[in-house]
């Protein structure tokens, strides 16, 4: 739909913080951006490759990058970090080696840390991947949406809205379906709202999933 602005971008100055924290002079800004992009891509590809073996929900919520003069600190917020922490030292180190190879910078150390999120299903990225998994298993969309809402209610949120667009249930005519539970005040800037827009590829085409979760009001 054309009218709603992305709630993350809307709240950037106030209740929402950026995912990268560093400073650069205007001439070097785009190089820093390219580095960030490389780090994020590397981590996502690595997680996807390895998670396929264990077939779980991967659940990266956010990747925060903080850069200082001599250190790059990467914090990965994951919902289910078991998969990366099981054989504890090996996989983390592999990740670090991969990312360092991509960046090829000698004067800065790289440090990757993994944080576990308290309620994994309270974060829309992880929920969206869960719903996507359901669609790939040909679950009917209403059931999938309702199950997702149950999970968030356990995870202690004040409101959730899910919208699915595309060839729902594989029907020829595409449509848009949405459910809302609780309250989701999109116009209130003081309200912390997490948003995620996710694309699923099914055999019938691409489905777009948008999830708004209302967490807290200041």
């Amino acid at each position, binding site marked *: 739909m054309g009218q709603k602005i992305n709630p*993350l971008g809307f709240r950037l100055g106030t209740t929402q913080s950026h995912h*990268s924290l560093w400073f650069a002079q205007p001439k070097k*800004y785009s190089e820093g*951006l390219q580095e960030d*992009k490389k780090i994020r891509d590397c981590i996502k590809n690595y997680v996807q490759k390895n998670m396929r073996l264990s077939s779980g929900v991967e659940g990266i919520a956010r990747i925060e990058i903080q850069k200082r003069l001599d250190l790059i600190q990467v914090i990965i917020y994951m919902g289910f970090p078991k998969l990366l922490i099981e054989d504890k030292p090996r996989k983390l180190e592999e990740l670090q080696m991969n990312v360092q190879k991509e960046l090829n910078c000698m004067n800065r150390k790289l440090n990757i840390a993994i944080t576990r999120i308290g309620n994994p299903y309270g974060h829309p990225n992880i929920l969206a991947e869960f719903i996507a998994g359901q669609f790939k298993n040909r679950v009917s969309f209403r059931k999938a949406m309702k199950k997702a809402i149950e999970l968030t209610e356990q995870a202690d949120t004040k409101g959730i809205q899910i919208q699915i667009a595309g060839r729902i249930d594989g029907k020829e005519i595409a449509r848009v379906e949405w459910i809302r539970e609780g309250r989701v005040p999109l116009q209130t800037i003081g309200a912390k709202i997490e948003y995620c827009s996710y694309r699923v590829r099914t055999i019938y085409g691409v489905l777009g999933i948008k999830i708004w979760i209302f967490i807290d009001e200041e």
Partner: protein
Amino acid sequence: MVKKSLIHREKKRQELEQKYHLIRRSSKKEISKVPSLSEKWKFHGKLQSSPRNNAATHLHRRCFLTRRPRANYRDFGLSGHILHEMVHACLLMGATRSSW
């Protein structure tokens, strides 16, 4: 997206420009130093003799994500559409919606 040949052409121009950067700079300096016109023509001939792809003016900035040749911002190195998406995804440090 963009044809691979276009991307490689850009790369070629960038490499050549870097190689000849200092040579061209020194030629331009000599032109400005030397007082008489005929000597200036001599150095100018030197500049003209090297192939055109060595010149910085032949480079064309492209968005580093999509390789789009138009609508690029030098501050970010990105084209307008991708810039808009990344601002909303909170990936661009320090960029917020402007209001005053």
